[in-house]
């Protein structure tokens, strides 16, 4: 096959490309230039935006002996990922930009262009399994598993994707990179948002959205217990950084329960009030088989690296509804609910949706 390897400059995508070459594919490496101003972006194994990353990717391609190009997707990235990220926060939700980038950039803009240019598939260094059965599964390395951020992909997108790393642990990938003489073998992982250079999401949002002072209200008493300078800076489940002036009657810590952009209010309350057992999702995607017509017993994950809980899931109309078997805390609108079927060969992603409400 003619395949396009998206090379971020990190160790994972370099080894993924190497494996694609070894599998006999005709591989072309592409580095995605996503930053309008490369200096402001973070470097790192998953960051994909700095000049250093671009050079690292190019050097990996040299070692593999494959052609290499840089594709400029800065405008698309800004529109579809950065602006959406800001807008989502402004609307009181908590977006996952990596997921969005997969959905709109890597497996949409890039994949479409690749296919139009005559490529059959896109190869990435994501840690997830995608076998001949077409099912997306968790990586063998559960600590590095990225099936959650890939669960937004549709059938058509998955059919043109290759994830060569799913059967390996991160340690094995690093070892292989070293063995292959790839200089990125011990490049550190990055876990932060690539377009927020200093990791200060709050500061980034304040910059984009401006100050918007408002009240922090206690859910039980209705009393104003504090002030904030922008509701967008808060996430459901957050406890730190609230600086509440009025102590809780029971002296227990309080958490962000909800954000109401309309009134610019942040509502806080005790940990128990965070617990939800029903989650509603919108824009569902179902790739793990035919869309179920009846309720289905399965497992769900409600944020990246979050806990997995048993649930009963139903698809109805344009939405998805999950009854959780045990209550979960800190479920934020805007994150994805990903539905898994436990499987000894790697839990299978059945589908996903964007969380719209939880109770």
């Amino acid at each position, binding site marked *: 096959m*003619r395949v396009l390897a998206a090379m971020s400059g990190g160790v994972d995508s370099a080894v993924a490309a190497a494996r694609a*070459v070894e599998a006999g594919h*005709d*591989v*072309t490496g592409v*580095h995605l*230039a996503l930053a309008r101003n*490369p200096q402001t972006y973070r470097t790192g194994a998953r960051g994909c935006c700095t*000049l250093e990353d*671009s050079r690292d990717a*190019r050097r990996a*391609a*040299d070692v593999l*002996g*494959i*052609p*290499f*190009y*840089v*594709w*400029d997707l*800065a405008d*698309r990235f800004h*529109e579809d990922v950065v602006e959406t990220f800001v807008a989502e926060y402004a609307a009181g939700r908590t977006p996952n930009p990596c997921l969005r980038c997969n959905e709109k950039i890597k497996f*949409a*803009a890039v994949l*479409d*262009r690749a*296919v*139009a*240019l*005559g490529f059959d598939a896109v190869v990435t260094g994501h840690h997830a399994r995608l076998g001949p059965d077409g099912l997306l599964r968790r990586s063998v390395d559960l600590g590095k598993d990225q099936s959650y951020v890939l669960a937004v992909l549709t059938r058509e997108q998955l059919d043109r994707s290759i994830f060569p790393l799913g059967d390996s642990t991160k340690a094995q990938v690093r070892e292989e990179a070293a063995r292959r003489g790839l200089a990125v073998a011990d490049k550190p992982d990055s876990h932060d948002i690539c377009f927020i250079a200093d990791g200060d999401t709050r500061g980034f949002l304040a910059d984009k959205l401006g100050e918007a002072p408002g009240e922090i209200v206690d859910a039980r008493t209705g009393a104003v217990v504090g002030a904030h300078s922008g509701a967008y800076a808060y996430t459901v489940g957050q406890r730190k950084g609230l600086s509440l002036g009025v102590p809780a009657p029971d002296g227990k810590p309080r958490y962000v329960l909800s954000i109401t952009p309309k009134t610019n209010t942040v509502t806080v309350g005790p940990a128990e009030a965070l617990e939800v057992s029903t989650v509603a999702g919108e824009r569902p995607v179902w790739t793990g088989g035919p869309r179920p017509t009846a309720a289905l017993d399965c497992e769900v994950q409600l944020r990246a690296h979050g806990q997995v809980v048993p649930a009963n899931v139903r698809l109805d109309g344009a939405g998805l509804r999950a009854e959780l078997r045990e209550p979960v805390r800190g479920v934020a609108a805007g994150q994805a609910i990903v539905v898994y079927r436990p499987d000894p060969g790697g839990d299978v992603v059945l589908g996903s949706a964007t969380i719209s409400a939880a109770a």
Partner: protein
Amino acid sequence: MAGREWIGTSGAGAGPAARGRASEAPARTLALGWMLMTYLDHAATTPMLEEALEAYAATAREVGNPSSLHAAGRCARRRVEESRERIAAVLGARPSEVVFTGGGTESDNLAVKGIFWARRAADPGRIRVVASAVEHHAVLDSVEWLATRDGATASWLPVDQAGRLDPDRLAAELDAHAGEVALVTAMWANNEVGTVQPIAALAEVAAAYGIPFHTDAVQAVGQVPVDFAASGVAALTVTGHKLGGPVGVGALLLGRDVGCTPVLHGGGQERDVRSGTLDAAGIVAFAVAVEAAVKAQQEYAARVAALRDDLVARVRQAVPEAVYNGDPADRLPGNAHFSFPGCEGDALLMLLDAQGIACSTGSACSAGVAQPSHVLLAMGADDDRARSSLRFSLGHTSTAEDVAALVAALPAVVERARRAGAVKSTRS
């Protein structure tokens, strides 16, 4: 292994066959990569002449700093001075007017900044630099740096649709700012679209106002007749690697009475205008290449222009909607520059590269991301036309086979790139 990178990659010997040429042993592939592909990017850099390579190797085997006072130093010095004379002789300059530099970019920086600084120092009212809008970045960014960091004012001279400057327009500009202008700079020939400027006429205008005129002749030397003295310019940039010499060596021809403040400070080796130990081997090879290129210029231009005309005619036939950019007559012999409506230059380049055909989209930034060409924009093209353009540049090793290979590959490539372009615009 089809599609594996093979140029300069040891062991990946299957490449040339996969790229549609007879297979060769890997070792040959390594050394002679460009011979096995269709190299249509001579304006970016052109293969070194065999005699320049030999002169380089022979001189590099010797020892001696041209500034040293002993026999070895004198020998190196002699090689440098002989080279200076050879270059001066074929370019219509005096030997003392040849200032060796590390290439075109350095010569441009030295001319623009150095002459500006010297002029302003002599007359503090002279703070304006007049430059053409289609300069290479080495000039463009030097002027912009002076404007943003050093108190200069820039006047950008517009070009017409063919990329040509108008001497009357320069006269008007100089009229308007008579006592304020420190320097005029305009390239002899454009590196992207190949338009050759009326340099003598422009220089005459500047001379009438007593203003020094610099020209970047990097693309012109060896391609069109270039005579420093006859052209009337005060300073002229030339570089080795565009005419069969090595990369990293060039010269600024600088009139004897033209003031120029150094950019690099140090030993003052070159007329106190440029410092740094002289690269005797590079300079010798550079001189060999300049001499060969200038002496062969007429014959070369006739042969290459004929090939180019054939290329243009056949590309237009194969892709009727292609737009031919630049000046049809006053043009570098090896330059063919097109826009392919609906395609992205990037995509075309990649698809041609996959077939072993090397060409260029124009300027690229450090990360390798193509920007729409300022040259095309200055010629009145819109963003789409600028982004859809591709430069094919022929040179001394080009053959009819190269043209044939391009023409054979192009229609399918354009078709594919157009479909990819359509996908992109419907999605966004």
